[in-house]
Each structure stands twice: as C-alpha cells, then as structure tokens.
C-alpha cells in the first residue's frame, strides 16, 4: 500500500530497532542503538537523566524523524511497518503504537469518558462517514459510538475510574490521571504501548496498582509494552527485558538479573571512583579548596 508497509515475517520480534541515531545539530542524543522488543513482554528502558530515553520514544512514535536507523514494527495482523518513514499521526493509527507522556497530557477540559472516546477517533470517523452520516444521525454511527463507549467502559472499570467518568480530566487526582492516560492509549487498540515514566509521582500503593495493571495488559491483551521508568522497584518487578542507555548509547541489554549485575550499569548509575584518576597535587588543591569554601 505505501512504502512503509511490508508483509509480516514470521518469528520476527514485535519491534526491531536497528542502528538508531538521533542528532540535534552537534548533539548526539541517541548513538547507534539497536534492540528488539517482543510482544507479550514488558521491555524496560532505563538510564540516568539525559540518556536519551524519551528521545527514543519520540522517534518511535513519530515526533522526531531519526537521523539514521530503522524502526521495524511487525504488526500481528496488518503487516510490517517501517516507523521512521511514516507520518507522525499515522503511527498510532495504522501501526498501532500508542504512548503516554512523562508530563501527563490529558485533554483537561474534557470529561474522562470523552478522553477515551477521542482516542477512538479514527474508528468513529469512518463510522460517521467523515461526519456526513453522523450529522444526519444514521444508526451506523450511533452503533459505533455505543461500541466505543463500551470499550471505554471496559478500560474505566479496569483502571477504577467508572465512578468518575463524567469528571473533567483536569480535576482528577494525579494517580488517576496517570491511569487514565494509560487507558486512553489502550483505547486506540495498540500492539505496542510505550509508557514514559508511568510511576513518576505515584505513592507505593498506587505504583503497586500500576504494576498489576501493566502485567494485566501484558498477559490478557498480549501486546508488547515499552517502559521508561526510574523507579527500580517497578522495573525489576515487572520487566521481562531491560535495556540500559547512557549518554545515548546502549550499555546493557538482558534480563533483569543480568542487568542488575552488569558492571557497566553500576558504573553508569553510581559513577566510578574518581580519586584514583586525579593527580595527587590536584587532589590536594581540591581538599584545600573545600576548606576555604567552608569559611
């Protein structure tokens, strides 16, 4: 159909990222990163601040065009998509990649239910024959809308927001907003869900609930999840596969157990012992400097 779409190959991973590089002028935000993410698995992407995790998400979901690299998505039914060639808004629509945002981006003045209905825009647009059938109120559109409401209700039940369906999204508590954003992304019926720090700002009980929700999505809906997270409890508990980025490069890739014991990861997170690298006179100056600074 279009250049970005190829027939699916069997046994190919859900997402195959090859040699992804993203440069902003002279800054290399992502440097030759390759990895795979499977469906029915939670793949976590971790790394210190500024490691390029969100940039990676922005490349995947079409907000940035990668400088170099190939992002191949094997849709189980619709075939293979090369995400780097697709226009941004087509990625969630055609290829089934949904995402949430680090700073929550809900439609604040719209109700919770409306947020979930807007997520089903393209389906409803077709049912309303690009508004014309909807305008005169054909039953086809009414049925499609009822279906959309039922899907929304399913997700509302799941994230526990049914009672607040008619609230303005902006009035929800923080944790509810996070879950609503996930529900909204799921309403697009994705095959790959990208979550950008879903546990940020949640209390332990809420983040426990989030773990349950994410594993439920993985197990019952059989889709792949890509997760950026700083909360190591969440990451270690639910991920099947972890990728570690540092300064835009991939420094580790494997199961939680492997990554936890990888010296490169420990170095990136905890830093190296620096004293031994310093010449003795510099170290002495530094020590003197701290004394003076203390005055």
């Amino acid at each position, binding site marked *: 159909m279009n250049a970005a779409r190829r027939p699916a190959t069997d046994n190919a991973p859900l997402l195959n990222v090859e040699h992804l590089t993203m440069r902003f002028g002279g800054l290399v935000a992502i440097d030759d990163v390759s990895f795979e993410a499977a469906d029915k698995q939670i793949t976590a992407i971790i790394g210190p601040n500024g490691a390029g995790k969100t940039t990676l998400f922005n490349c995947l979901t079409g907000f940035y065009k990668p400088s170099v690299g190939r992002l191949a998505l094997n849709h189980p039914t619709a075939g293979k998509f090369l995400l780097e060639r697709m226009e941004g808004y*087509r990625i969630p629509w*055609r290829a089934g990649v949904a995402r949430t945002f680090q700073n929550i981006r*809900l439609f604040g*003045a719209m*109700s919770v239910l409306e947020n979930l209905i807007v997520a089903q825009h393209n389906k*409803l647009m077709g049912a309303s024959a690009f508004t014309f059938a909807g305008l005169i109120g054909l039953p086809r559109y009414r049925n499609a809308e009822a279906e959309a409401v039922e899907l929304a209700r399913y997700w509302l039940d*799941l994230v*526990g927001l049914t009672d607040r369906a008619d609230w303005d999204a902006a009035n929800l508590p923080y944790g509810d907003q996070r879950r609503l954003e996930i529900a909204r*992304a799921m309403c697009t019926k994705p095959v790959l869900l990208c979550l950008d720090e879903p546990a940020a700002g949640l209390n332990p009980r809420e983040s426990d609930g989030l773990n*349950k929700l994410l594993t439920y999505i993985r197990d019952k809906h059989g889709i792949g999840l890509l997760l950026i997270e700083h909360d190591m409890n969440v990451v270690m508990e639910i991920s099947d596969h972890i990728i570690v980025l540092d300064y835009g490069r991939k420094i580790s890739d494997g199961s939680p157990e492997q990554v936890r014991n990888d010296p490169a990861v420990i170095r990136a997170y905890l830093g190296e012992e620096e004293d031994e690298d310093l010449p003795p006179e510099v170290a002495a100056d530094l020590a003197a400097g701290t004394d003076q600074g203390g005055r």
Partner: protein
Amino acid sequence: MTVADDVSTGRAAAKPLDVPAVFKECGLTALVVFGLAVGMVAFRTRDVPGGLEIATRFGSVAAVTVIAFFGRLAVVLLREGRPLPVLATVLPFAVVMLVALLAAQFFEPGTAAAVGAYLPFGDVVVNWIITIVAFGFAGQAAWALRHTGASKKSIKDRERAMDEFAARFQRTARLIGPVLLAVAIVFPLLAFAPETPFLPKVDRRTLDIAILVATYIMLGWGLNIVVGLAGLLDLGYVAFYAVGAYSYALLATHYDLSFWICLPFAGMMAASAGIILGFPVLRLRGDYLAIVTLGFGEMIRVILLNWYSFTNGPDGISGIPRPSFFGLDFVRNAPEGVETFHSFFGLSYSPIDRIIFLYYVILVLALLTNLFTLRIRKLPVGRAWEALREDEIACRSLGINPRNTKLTAFSIGAMFAGFAGSFFATRQGFISPESFTFIESAVILAIVVLGGFGSQIGVVLAAIILIGLPEFFRDLQQYRMLAFGAAMVLIMIWRPAGLLAHREPTIRLPEKPKGESRSGSSAAGAAP
C-alpha cells in the same frame, strides 16, 4: 509596602491603621491621576471664529484629583476591614450626586443650570459614572459590614462559584432557549398587531436592530467553532464575511443568479478561503496564529480595495438584488411577467414585509449555525477539535491528523461567515471594503470571548449586549467604546473564561446494561 503585606497575609482586620503609609498611597494615586489629567483633561482646543482657542478645565482636573484621592482612601479602608467610615462618607456623597443629577435632568433649565454648576464635571455622563461607582463602593462597604469576619473568598472559590452559576444558567438555558426562540419567531409579527399599551411597539428600526444582532449572533456562533471549539485564535474572521459578501454580490450582479443559488456558492468560496488561510498557519499557535490571521484579514480588505477591475475598489458594489420569497419579489410594482409577494398572497403592499422576511432569513441561517455546532460537538470531528484545543501533541499520539482537523475547523467556521456575508450583501444592497475592517473582527471576537468560549447562549447574550444595546443607545455613541473596553477589562479580571463558560460533556457514561454489575473497583486497577 506594609499595606500590601497585610493583604497577602490576610490578617488585615485587627491591625491598627498605618496612617502615613495610607496617606502616602492615596497621595501617590492622586499625583498620578493629576499628572494624567493635566495632560488629558486640562486643555482642549475649541473652534471659534478665526481659529482655534485653548479652553482650560482646571476645575475638572481638581475634581478628578480629589476623587482619586478619596476613592483610593475608600479602597484602602475597605481592604483594611474598616467599611464603616467608607459607608458613612461615600453613601451621602452618592445620594447627593444622584439627587443633583436628577434635579439637573428634570428641573426647568434655569434651576438645572444652577444645580449643574455644583456638579464636579461638566459632562453629565461622567457625573453619572462617578455616582454609580460611588454607589458601588457604598454597596461593597455595606456588604463588608454585614459579613464581618467572613473570610474573603479566594480567587479559586470565586471561579468555582461562577462556574456553578454558569452551569446552573446553562441548565435553565435549556428551558430559556425555546422561550427565547419563540420570542424571536413571534416578535416581528407584532409589527402587524394593532397598537396597544400592552405590547411593545415593533417598528422598522427595531427590526433592523434585530437583524443586525442576529447577524452578529450568527457570526459569533461561526467564530465559536474556530476559537471556542478548536482553540484557534482568529483575528481575521471578517475576511471570510467579506469573501461571502463579495461572492454573492459579484455572482448576482454579473450572472443574475438568485440569492438562494448564490448562498451555497458564497459558503464554498469562504470555506476555500478558510483552507487557503489554514495551510500556512498549521504550525502556528496562540499569539503567532492571531498575528497571521490578523494579517490575512487585512490582506483580503486591501485586495478588495485595490483590485478595481474585479471588485470595483473603494466604490463598492451597488444594486445587489434582494432575496425573493420562492421567486416572489418584495416590490410595489413588479415588471411585466413577475409576480410580487403581496399580489400573490392578496395583501396590500407594505415595505415592512421585506424587512420581516430578511429577519426570518437571518434567523434561520443563525439557527442552522447553532444546530450544526451543537450536533458536530457530539461527532468525532467536534471532539477532535476540542481535543486539539486541549493538547495537540496528545492528539497526534492518538492518531488524529492535526492538519485535517485544523483545516476543517477553519473552513467550516469560514463557511458560516460566508453565509452571513452574503446575507449582509443582500440586506444592504451595497457593499464596499469599508464594511470589513478589523474592528468587525474584533467585535465578533469580543462577542465570543465575552459570552464564554464555546458557550452558545453566551454568544447570544454578548451579541445583544455589545450590538443591540449600543444601537438602542445611539445617543451615547461616544461612550460606547469606553464601556466596551471597561466591560472587557472587568470580565478579564472576574471571569477570564467568559461570562458563561461552562462546558457540558458531549457524552455521559450510560447506566450499565443489566447483568454483571461489578463496579470498577478501587485504585489498585482491578486487575485480578
């Protein structure tokens, strides 16, 4: 500033008054006002035979300064929780002013002049404003006196209260709407009613104003699609109005097409203009978008002004045909072979028939706009517009095409402006670029902002306030823009979202169909 600190900490009531600071503040205010007044009030040039003469109004400057000083004092005292002295001084002042004003109004000229000489300003309207403001202060003081100790409402509380009010108003609006509609339908027929003291007199002037108001209501509803729903600030909306008007005028005068055939064409032309504007501004938002649309509006006007061979330039287009009632013209004597409205229905000719017909035409067009908006809000496009207003990036992440969504908003909004424009052309019979200046865009936008973004009934109220009232009070013409500006400032302070900006969700979660009634359980995500 100690005074300001007190306010911010909210313990103002119990504190002793810091008299020097208060006087300093009041003096400073008076000084600033004095400085402004010397420049703006003290001197004016007057036309006398043989040239201009400078007239001085130092009395007014003094009055302004004194009033500013005491007004500020009243503000400070109210702020410090001492309403009693304010009430005790302001109320007598206000009452005296009122009595004097009424006296000056109704007594014989001799007495009136004698009383008028004691009023602080030469101009009646300024005196009235001062009086009304004084009553406002007195009312506030009385209110504060009755509610001593009650903590001041925070801005957020007030916002919420206003929103609740708007919600209640809109709920009643569902009942008021049909009533208003019935009034709108019935009232022109009163022109035929015999003159009785019980019914308001409907004459040609009233109908003309009603037509004007209805035109602006329609424009407001049309712009509401672009600004209120899609959140695209459009300062050049009048351009589409102009495109519609010129489309009809040119088609009708060159090709002799009737109004009803031209109307869809005019809408289509305006919608195309909307798309032409839409494309270059797809990436812009907020202020930048406003600037470009402003420029677009001016471009259209300048093109109309200078493309003489096509648009007849500043001379405008005259002799635009009037609409007919299914082919029946509203004229006294029809040419050979053409039937007129009155002869077909066997009535005697009355020039007001045409005006009433025009009124119904614009009423129907406006209602069409309204129904369309109400309907499309509940359709995917309408929801996508609103989502786009809330967050464009989130829209893209959900697979909504921002380009098409924006373009539909621009073109549909423009289409309704085009309809209104061709109505304008047929009503006036003459159009020129002068009718499509920036101030028109500003007024339409003001109607939308004042009414509350996205509020349909708010637009009606705002159009009546901004268009209808000034037309009725033509005598106060020179204060019209002043009141306009003051109203805008006050609304921006009290209700930045507009008078009736309360948004009802377009869809509510229906009751669960029978069967499993497992309610979505709590925060844990219910995942078993």
